[in-house]
């Protein structure tokens, strides 16, 4: 048990423990051991320790590592989730980007596990996350409605780094919503992308995933007389 106590102490007391990337290796070795139950320690003990750690003020990088540690250790118990939900009433309330990202990470962590205890209405009230940490907010939204996700991403699609953020999420969207819905989404985004190179990248991804876009889909759309595809067709022409 001593090893675990030391480790928890390390995370609590060493400001750099959660941000030093090289130093994270042992942290995740511990997480692996807890997950595989090769260490004789009780979940209740770690739960209590993690709650103590949580008393510290986190920055977004630390918070992200902390949540990863919980995830990889499979320690995301109801007790911890309830504590995190309660903490939203008092922490990360300012409108700064850093607070919005932290708050977004916590909300995402909750929704991923229990979308039923956090309503979509509550998510829409999180305007600072939506404005300052828009891709995290989109991740949250994806647990409720893909059609809303499609629309939200469309509003950001021409922003700097938007395509990179979208590509990063393609595996998730594919798993969550399936090829047919992703196809509809890609056509919509494709039609709204202004940059030729970005459009080519998205087109390549559609091909990688065996999803038809471009002329063929535009032609298909024309036959079906779906108005928003016309934009795609015109840009292609």
């Amino acid at each position: 048990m001593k090893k675990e106590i030391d480790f928890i102490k390390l995370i609590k007391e060493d400001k750099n423990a959660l941000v030093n990337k090289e130093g994270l290796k042992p942290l995740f070795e511990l997480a692996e051991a807890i997950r595989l139950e090769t260490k004789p320690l009780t979940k209740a003990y770690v739960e209590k320790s993690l709650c103590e750690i949580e008393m510290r003020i986190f920055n977004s990088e630390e918070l992200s590592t902390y949540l990863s540690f919980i995830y990889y250790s499979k320690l995301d118990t109801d007790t911890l989730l309830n504590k995190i939900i309660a903490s939203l009433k008092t922490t990360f309330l300012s409108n700064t980007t850093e607070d919005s990202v932290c708050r977004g990470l916590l909300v995402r962590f909750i929704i991923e596990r229990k979308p039923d205890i956090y309503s979509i209405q509550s998510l829409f009230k999180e305007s600072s996350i939506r404005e300052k940490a828009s891709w995290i907010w989109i991740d949250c939204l994806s647990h409720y409605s893909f059609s809303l996700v499609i629309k939200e991403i469309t509003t950001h699609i021409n922003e700097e780094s938007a395509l990179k953020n979208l590509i990063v999420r393609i595996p998730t969207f594919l798993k969550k919503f399936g090829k047919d819905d992703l196809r509809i989404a890609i056509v919509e985004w494709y039609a709204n992308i202004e940059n030729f190179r970005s459009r080519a990248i998205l087109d390549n991804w559609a091909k990688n995933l065996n999803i038809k876009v471009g002329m063929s889909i535009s032609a298909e759309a024309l036959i079906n007389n779906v108005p928003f595809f016309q934009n795609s067709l015109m840009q292609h022409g």
Partner: protein
Amino acid sequence: MSKYDEYLKCKCCQDILSSEYGQVIKNIIDDDETYITESMKIDLFLYLARHDGISDMMQYWDDFFDHPKGKDLSEKTYLLKGRIIDNSIYNKKLGRVSSLTGFMRSLKTALSKITVPISDFDDEAFTEIFFIEPEDISNTSSQLFIDYANDTGILNFKIQQHPMWTFEGLDDEDVYKGIKKIKDLPCILGLPGPFRTSSDYNKIPRITFSFFVPKYIIVRKPTSFDAGYMPVWCGGGKAKAHKECQSDYTEFLFEEYIHEPVLYKNITSQLIKI
């Protein structure tokens, strides 16, 4: 009896010697002093003598080898000091086995420099698209992950932050040729379990891939200092298989190497689940 006996009298060293980690001290004593010199070994033993008897031993060892902290790998005092391998290594594909979580963590660290990273919760989705079973090597493309790395902007990022342990296959072009079951790799390579011993070595989800080492990276033989607090390692330059697979494979089948991490763009195969 060894010339280091007087340094090994401390309680810390004695505790290690009498534990399942005792092999790490023996490895250090036996290691070639052309590369890990007597004074380097004494540095470590004196450091161990200063252990407070309370703090985590694994972390304590890691701290020693991480010296000086915060510096690049090329500036570390004790790591990557083994024999340099000749230039022919750059004409071969090498193999790497990584824990799945370690690979994902490094990937997300790289992605976080460019994008807003996805949640850990989405690892499974990533795994489903990019990680293949060994039997699918011939009917899938190795380009898919490279496209992902390229389009998300991480192609020129290092695939991890710590030194990279790698192995040479039996064929220069195809690392996996001649291996009866790719899923046996953790056993053939004698990889450690969660606490760096042989216990539970097969419980860790892992992946493997092949890659080229770019010529600016020096490839070396690992030393006892590179292995650190990892008793499954043994010297001699070849990976030592676990007992369970020694009947199917030679005990020392693959040449093993260590070097600074390569970049995502150096990967030449699919990411294969093992």
